[in-house]
């Protein structure tokens, strides 16, 4: 079944479509709406967004896969987004990423079998002053070391 937005999201969509000058610009916040409503974006959600915004599905997929900050549907309970851009990289983000890979037994954009964790290497999270940074769901965890990270993961149930 094709997806549809509920009335409240449609209202938000209408408001957004007044605000942006071009379809391409509108695409970004509407993807965010889809992410919120459907708890992550899947192919059907992208089809829906393409139809509403009036851009081809190929474009929506292009934008969605370009930005690492959108959440794909089917992610685990905790989405671990490891910043991999330069300042974080200089301060050890690669080590953190490798550590998580090993500990969880998954690669970037994969989910543990119990559905608890999804690992994702992302671009700059905008918190270079407190690098390295991992975003877990909506929260930032800053100035990380592998030890600190282990403690944090142990607390997540």
């Amino acid at each position, binding site marked *: 079944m094709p997806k549809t937005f509920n009335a409240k999201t449609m209202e938000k969509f209408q408001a957004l479509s007044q605000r942006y000058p071009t379809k391409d610009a509108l695409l970004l916040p509407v993807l965010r709406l889809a992410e919120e409503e459907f708890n992550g974006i899947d*192919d059907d959600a*992208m*089809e829906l967004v*393409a139809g509403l915004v*009036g*851009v*081809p*599905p*190929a*474009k*929506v*997929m*292009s934008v969605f*896969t*370009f930005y*690492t900050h959108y959440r794909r549907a089917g992610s685990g309970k905790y989405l671990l987004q490891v910043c991999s851009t330069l300042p974080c990289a200089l301060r050890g983000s690669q080590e953190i990423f490798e550590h998580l890979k090993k500990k969880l037994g998954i690669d970037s954009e994969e989910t543990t079998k119990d559905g608890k964790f999804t690992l994702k290497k992302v*671009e700059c999270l905008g918190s270079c002053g407190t690098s390295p940074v991992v975003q877990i769901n909506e929260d930032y965890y800053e100035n990380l070391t592998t030890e600190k990270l282990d403690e944090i993961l142990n607390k997540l149930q």
Partner: protein
Amino acid sequence: MDKVTLYINGTAVQAQKGATVLEAALSAGIDIPRLCFHSALPPQSSCRLCVVEVKGARGLIASCSLPAAQDMAVTTNSEKLFKYRKYILELILSNHPMDCMTCEKSGECELQEYAYKFGIKQTPIRGEVTNYPIEATDPLMMIEHSKCILCGRCVSVCRDLWATEAIDFSKRGFSSKISFPFDKPRLESDCVFCGNCITFCPTGAITERSALGKGRSWEVKKIPSVCPFCGCGCNIEINTKAGKIVKITSNENTPVNKGLLCVKGKFGYDFVHHPDRIGKPSACSTDPSADSASFVQQPCGENGHPCYPSTSLHENLIKSSERLSRPMVKKGGKFHEVSWDEAMNVVSGRLLEMKQKYGAEALGVLCSAKCTNEENDLMQKLARTLLGTNNVDHCARLCHSSTVAGMVQSFGGAAMTNSIEEIEKASCLFVIGSNPTENHPIIGAIIARTAMKGAKLIVADPRAIHLTKFASAWLRHKCGTDVALINGLLNVIVKEGLQNNEFINARTENYEDFRNSIEKYTPEYVSGITGVPKEEIIKAARIYASSKNAMIFFAMGITQHTTGTDNVLSVCNLALLTGNVGKEAAGVCPLRGQNNVQGACDVGALPDFYPGYQKVNDPNARGKFGKAWGIPLDNKIGYTLTEMVNFAAQDKIKALYIMGENPMMSDPDLLHADEAFKKLEFMVVQDIFMTETAQLADVVLPATTFAEKEGTVTNTERRVQLMRRAIQPWGDSKPDWQIICMLGKKLSSVLRRNEPAFGNVYFDYDSPAEIMDEIASLSPVYGGISYDRLGKIGLQWPCPDKNHPGTKFLHKDRFSRGQGRFNVVEFRPPAESADNEYPFTLTTGRVLYHLHGGSMTRRSTGLDFILHEGYVEVNPEDAERLGFQHGQHVNVTSRRGTIKIKANVTDKVPPGTVFIPFHFAECAANILTNNALDPVSKIPEYKVCAVRIEV
């Protein structure tokens, strides 16, 4: 000042203001290495190979996107640049397989060429490589991501030139790749299989899978020719090796299509080599869809290439689908192969017997919009001289006869007034009753991209078509209400004073009567008839009338009605009222459906005209042609195609000679046509396949395809172009012109025994060029056309003499009839309307992947793979009410017959209206259609009839 002077490598170069440094350099003959740049596309600026040094600028700058400025000093070649460019190439090659020895693109690969020029044997850079699998999900095309250099040309051509936007980049950085949406197979995407991404790909990343392993650039011969499908007349290159067509390409210097092709032109050629000879029973009896499925899953071959099936996927599709290779005569209900001599004896003997027994008016000849000008000319000459009848017609009767009737009355000439290249200069495009994206793809793409760039597009169509996405106004009127709709537009324009009074006064007549006649067609009144909201009518009228240059495009949605001629007159009224005709990028453009339907009309394949639209009942013309052809001619206007079929049913036509047409698929009310053809005493079909019509014939003569013969064809913009022979004729088949010459000589040798004058009728032509010289000598519009002048770009008629350059647009300063005539046109409803018993309105048409009766396209592996089965489009509301699902088979019944057909539930059609493409013999739409005729042009009403649907 619109020029700037810059200095490239110390030399002063003049450039247009706004040109880039790269363009300036190239126009001055200075080459700059480049990979992502293509002159037909906006700059991509992704490969960085075209960097140059600019005096005073920091770093190196990509010349493809750097505007040339006054006094700019540019260096394009230095040791620094050489090193930099070499490094770029080494980086690209570090993630590129070095398998040129087996790559399809070898010899034409731009990356290979640069590696050679820069002397790169092996890249010194070692690192990660991308490892995406080869995408080969259909028999037509494949993508090898490892060879992709992410230049973006394919994405750009798909978006900026073809207005399809089926592919785009996905992911980012090193992981970037070209993707269809959601990485699904091509068939499930918006891709229309045009293959232009292949043409524009600089490497072997996207290639013709259908040409895999069949020969590389240096092995193939490229013969320039013209596409055999629709009326666009795209220029193609037939790539052959060892007497077989390997693939079809085009190049950017071509006048019509600038190197672009559609799926039929690019991939539809393989009917030429349809595998089996006549007489051999079809081998395959499995379900073709199962075949297709197993094909998709076929594993890769040993060398990593996907396998390509060696035989057609659908051999069981149409019985006797083989290319005809020998003449055949029916004896005792069965065809037997005979020699050409014997066939000619039978044909000439039986035709003359019929002529003697029933008179010349009992004979009829159907010419062909698929055959060349020369062939059609000879065929009508044979009919009018040796057979002695003007009963000559062809399928233009079924598509644009109402255009001829209407436009001659309004303007004095029936051809497309403008040229394809003018479309991009228009500020308003009004498309009514035409779906060019599917039927005239190159024109459809140009219209869509012109709209994307800002021109106003108005679409009037009951169905949602690709162009409605780009439209500023979409008038979704009810089928058959075109006159009312256009009168509504005219009414608004006059009421709001938007008409062009200067033009009306200077160039038109009958304005007052016309103006009075449209007074009652107020937006409110018209809205009631058409179902279009009055606001939309007003909006569209204002857009059209206030645009500087407006072009109207129409096709079968206007012409195939019992009001076909009226519809055309209305369209012409609209152009006259606003002065949008007789100038560049403004006019009335009937889009021609077959590759030579324009030419067949031009050279007299019509019952009322000799070549060059000279009337058969005009004594001067008759005298002129009688003298030239060596025998007095009949002055009676002949029967039209539709009349010939009806008269066959009534025993008035006794013999028919049909060249390259398949009326048993294309006529309306096929059950009636079948009855009529079966009543004929003698019937000859000259064709390339055993078509539905050929099966009813007494004699079948094997003709050659477009690739096996020479001749000219005239496209929709009146461009006469040369088709060249690329391969030898199949088996014993012969070019149509040679067959007609053989028959002509045979007939005249018999006839001259009693009437020596018949000996004067000349059929001893050596070549098509000689026939064209005769056409030119007799028809003024072709007067200056000869083979030595056609060259690479052809000539657009009117071309009255040898020094005339041809005509880009018509009716400049003066209409062909003198003044443009306004005509009073009142709305009349279609012949058949939906009622309680037959509650749906059926409209028919073509789809992108097939042409007409499908004789050619359904025998093409790729086209058949994409679309194998007919369907009826039904609105979801109707489907739900009637209780059937998408994909289910339903019975569709009209007053004339019933077909069983798959339901395609879609909101492309409005509730109450259904659409069926007419290509599919097993669910032939024309069993249902109504043969009610337009009183003037005798065109049948294919576009409206009443049907019911049963589960």
